């Protein structure tokens, strides 16, 4: 049986991959996937802490987070679809009109 710390480490690594991916990639779809990675990393951290403490609170949180992540990704993908229709690109660095 794996120690709780090892689950936690997997969560941290997942989160780290998500962050680095978010900062380095430019495709919007990939960015959304990176966000999913970060959410899941955080969720994994939740459940591994639950396992350590024996409480169920964190698991409830994760269920909530998963639902919300699903909703979020639905909204985000629809926005991406509209942006692509208008600008014919998925490159975030070209979506920079909202600035000073």
């Amino acid at each position, binding site marked *: 049986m794996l120690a709780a710390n090892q689950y936690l480490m997997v969560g941290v690594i997942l989160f780290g991959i998500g*962050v680095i991916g*978010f*900062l380095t990639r*430019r495709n919007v779809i990939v*960015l959304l996937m990176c966000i999913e990675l970060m959410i899941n990393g955080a969720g994994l951290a939740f459940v591994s802490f639950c396992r350590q403490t024996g409480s169920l609170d964190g698991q409830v949180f994760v269920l909530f987070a998963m639902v919300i992540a699903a909703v979020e990704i639905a909204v985000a993908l629809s926005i991406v679809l509209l942006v692509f229709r208008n600008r014919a690109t998925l490159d*975030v*660095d070209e*979506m*920079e*009109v*909202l*600035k*000073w």
Partner: protein
Amino acid sequence: MVEATGLFSKLWLVPALPLAGALFNCLLGRQVSNFVVSIVACGSIGLAAVLSLLLFNSFLKLPVEQRHIELCMYNWIPSGDFVAPIDLLLDPLSMVMITMVSGVSFLIHVYSVGYMSRDESFARYFFYLNLFVFFMLLLVLAGNFKVLYIGWEGVGTCSYLLISFLYHKHSAARAGLKAFVVTRFGDFFFALGIMLVFVQFKSIYFGEVLPRAHEVLTPVMATWIALLIFGGAVGKSAQVPLHTWLPDAMEAPTPVSALIHAATMVTAGVYLVARCYPIFQLSPTAMSTVAVIGLLTAVISATIALVNNDIKRILAYSTVSQLGHMFIGLGVGAPAAAIFHLLTHAFAKALLFLGAGAVIHALHEEMDIRRMGALKGHIPATFWTFLVGALAMAGIPGLAGFFSKDAILEASFTNGGVLLWLIMVVTAGLTAFYCFRLFFNAFLGEKRWDPHVEEVHHPAPVMTIPLMLLAVLAAVGGYMGVPHALGGADRISSFLAPVFPPAHHTDGGSSSKSLEIILMVVSSLSALGGISLAYFFYVMPGNREIPERLRQTFGGIYDALSNGWYFDKVYQVVFVDRFMGAANFFWQAVDTSVLDMTVRGLAGLVLGGGAVVPRLQTGLVRWYALFMVAGAVVIMGYLFL
């Protein structure tokens, strides 16, 4: 308190008519012709004067105990205990005042039509003048301290506006400022006095305050209130040490000097003290202060008038001196005599000023009496009316000034002592001398005109008729107060008696008839002596160098007098220069270098920051994410370390 009924309910029209005239001339004066402006200006004041006379007529028919009419216009500031209604009070004192103010104002308005006819700011002039009359009538009709104070400040403002009427002239602008600042200094004390009255009485109505004064006030508190109120009177009525603004105020057009700085506004201080007389009576200290200030003023300004050469300034110092006489009258427990003198002085001095205006006009703006002379044949109407005014001013028996001055002299002898009386008799001689020094220099002797004056301007009838009417008033105005000793009824005193309850510590009218007549004879002799001396110096041929020799002999005294006893110089050094120094310091050292720099520095910081910080908002999502990560790292670092 009697509610106003019948004609008395129209009392509000007396101040409202001049206000309406002022509004018309202010809003439409520039669109209509000068003729319309003068009709509106004189007409509104004339109607007010007629209404005052009608009111006077009905007022005399009222029984004495009903001669106290209050008319509340509306409640202006109700706040807790404090209500400040606009209410008017008609009692014998305000009755004589509105009659005099509206009547004299009317004559001066008519005269102004001629005097100002060539001025391009004709409508502006009459706007100010009408507004002044409104505030003056409001002042004397006020039923409480607050309304009185509104009128008080209003006349001060109009005085300022009219002194600086020729605002492009530097000296006029300065004189207006000086008048405003100096009188404001007195007004400050007056305002404190009103506040103290409210604290003590929880009321500012004259009808509630004055009858209860002897119950509510301790002697110390009465002294404080009286002195604070008197402070306002000193400023407005140009008494020593705040008299310096009045001679400078002669920068105003001459009819303004006649109206504001001789007949009406400057007498507001006398009116104020008379109005608050029940408070002054409670404090012997305040009474003696009033008398002493009055005496100092009377003597100092009479001596200055002896040597001055500016026709209007002589009259201005004379006004200050006569106001001093009125305050002596108030101080020695003869308020009715003071008000009597106020009225006769208003007639005589308005006449003299208007006459001086005609002289100045005739000689093309010449004001120096050394460059006048021999005007008798050229402007005879002015000559004769001026003579009446000068005689009335000097106190020659039979004319107005004689009776009123004598009433004050008699009261000073009875209540103030022989010394006070003696000084006043000498001052009466000085008064006669300077009046006739002016008169003889202007109208008699040889021509000493400026060579540029080729032809004399003759005053139009619109100017001479008011002069004649005022001359009649100055001649016969005294018969409203012929003393008992001369077989008269002294009607003015008995008319005013309900306003001035008999004093507790003085006992007027105790002097015997023969004593009173002796006093009159002595003061008349003093006046005649002054006139004779002036005649000897300035009319008899070959004597003109005598004053010159006297001047050289008493050079120090002459210098002191011609510099107005150095009041202005001392004030310049002690107050004005100090103040300017402080103002310069605060301007250069504090405002410009500290405050401005601080504010500008802050503004620069914000501007500079505003140029840099927005650049962070690039619109690049990943850039924001980087900041979030960096922020998270910093927070984590902070939490773990």
